């Protein structure tokens, strides 16, 4: 049914998706909050950068990440100079790539959720002596709960489903950087349709369940852009 390589691909994929989602929620929440609140005239530039992975071919993104994070790229070189490893063909590199790639799927639902709260509950909280951080933690975050569910599920599911970026930056090393989507591709290449079916069917089911969760939890919220 599943061979060892398949199982290790599943483990790698789940580990990658969980790590990415967790980091994106931590980084994306303040970013989304800032985007929802700021009246800075050039915020559309930041919004565009965040949204870029939606339209960019994943291989293009993966290529630049590989160049940037690899031994001769600016980031890789800096890391090497600090006595660390460059990130090409590593799990950490995969995480960095996934964060960039899945960023809009986390930031946009959060930004929408924060915006839809409106100013009023926060103003009310301010008149009740809550400082800005207090308002963020006790009003904005609880009221944006549907947005967090959407963001977490979409971020996770989208990371599980990525192909081009992980192929470029991860290099498809079994047990290390080989993820499910690539494993399916490998099975098909090898004409091993039975294994491909098992993995593809599993992913189909998982994607369906993820979106079902989003819709069930946020009955009113809609899944934006995919």
């Amino acid at each position, binding site marked *: 049914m599943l061979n060892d390589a398949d199982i290790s691909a599943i483990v790698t994929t789940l580990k990658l998706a969980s790590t990415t989602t967790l980091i994106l929620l931590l980084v994306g929440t303040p970013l989304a909050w800032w985007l929802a609140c700021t009246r800075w005239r050039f915020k559309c530039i930041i919004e565009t950068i965040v949204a870029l992975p939606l339209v960019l071919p994943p291989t293009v993104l993966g290529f630049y990440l590989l160049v940037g994070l690899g031994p001769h790229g600016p980031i890789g070189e800096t890391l090497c100079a600090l006595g660390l490893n460059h990130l090409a063909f590593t799990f950490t590199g995969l995480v960095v790539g996934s964060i960039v790639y899945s960023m809009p799927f986390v930031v946009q639902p959060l930004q929408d959720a924060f915006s839809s709260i409106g100013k*009023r*509950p926060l*103003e*009310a*909280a*301010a*008149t*009740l*002596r*809550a*400082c*800005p951080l*207090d*308002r963020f933690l*006790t*009003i904005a975050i*609880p*009221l944006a*709960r549907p947005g967090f569910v959407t963001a977490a599920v979409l971020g996770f599911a989208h990371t599980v489903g990525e192909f081009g970026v992980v192929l470029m930056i991860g290099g498809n090393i079994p047990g290390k950087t080989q993820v499910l989507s690539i494993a399916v591709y490998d099975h098909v290449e090898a004409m091993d349709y039975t294994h491909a079916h098992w993995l593809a069917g599993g992913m189909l089911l998982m994607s369906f369940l993820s979106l079902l969760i989003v819709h069930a939890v946020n009955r009113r919220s809609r899944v934006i852009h995919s």
Partner: protein
Amino acid sequence: MTIDARFSLVRGGFALNVSLSMPARGITGIFGPSGCGKTTLLRALAGLEHDPLGHLTVGEVVWQNGSTFIPTHKRALGYVFQEASLFTHLTVRQNLEYGLKRIPRRERRLTFDSAVVLLGLNKLVDRAIDNLSGGERQRVAIARSLLTSPSVLLMDEPLASLDAQSKAEILPFLENLHRELSTPIMYVSHSLEEVAQLADHLVLMNAGRITAAGPLPQLLGRFDLPLAHSTDAESVVHAVVARHDNEYMLTHLKFAAGEFLIPRVALPSGRSVRIRILARDVSLTLKRQVDTSILNVLPARIKELTREDSATMTVLLDIGGDTPILCRLTRKSATMLKLRKDKQVFAQIKSIALFGTRQPSAEQLQPAHTMTSVRQG
């Protein structure tokens, strides 16, 4: 103690340009047509609109001047928005406690339980916000803001989004606040009726500017202001419950220069009340009528009279005391009676509404009894 404010703000095509001093006690009504800047003024007082050049002092405390701007959450104020703006993810109790928990214990002047009693929330505290009516939500919002023990309570048209029944339900509670608490209230409204019922002091606004400010009864009778000329022009007179007549079940209300009679109300003698008389409910006679069903007939002197349109006139009557009352009549009647300034007449008052206000009372609140409207004749 006063609240002194000076703001000049531009928001879109609208400019607010005000400088005013309001007494930091009782209820100050901020009244004017929609879009005149009342809400913007209130938001500027709260620090929700920032005018970098504004000045604001509440009693001794500077909330804003050239170099200082105390942010909203550090100002000892309560704010009641037009829509209740309760936190939907919290229960009624948690909403009420939100502000309470954020002020130091020693600054708390109102306990949770007394706020609940004051606004009649006993049955609501453990309910979810979704299950409250509009009027109930607004009462929760008022209690929530009061629980921060504010040094001033700002209310932005708290009744405007409610139906007539909910309004009638809340007004007695507002009167009660006025009676039970010393917290000054700035009350924004475009309803003359609400303002007349509640306010002691009035600030009139138009097109981003203040047109007049002063004690409410005086402003209602000023011919240079629009209030006296509106179709619902009215007068407010302060009086005291003098005695009850048990034979005819009437109550005698004493004011500076005489008495009013109204059907018996359940208020103790000595209780200060506020009487509201609509200009169109006052008629004039030259001699005191004896064969009339109207009980309230007062000798009066015409202070001023003016033509409203081709058919109607408004007369300002001195009935003794410091508050003149308005009378609306037809131009034909004025001509027939040869009305002119300083002429002595008799004012027949067909209807009196009584708002129970003033003075703390020991008795438990009975909202149903605090407003009585009487029509006679």
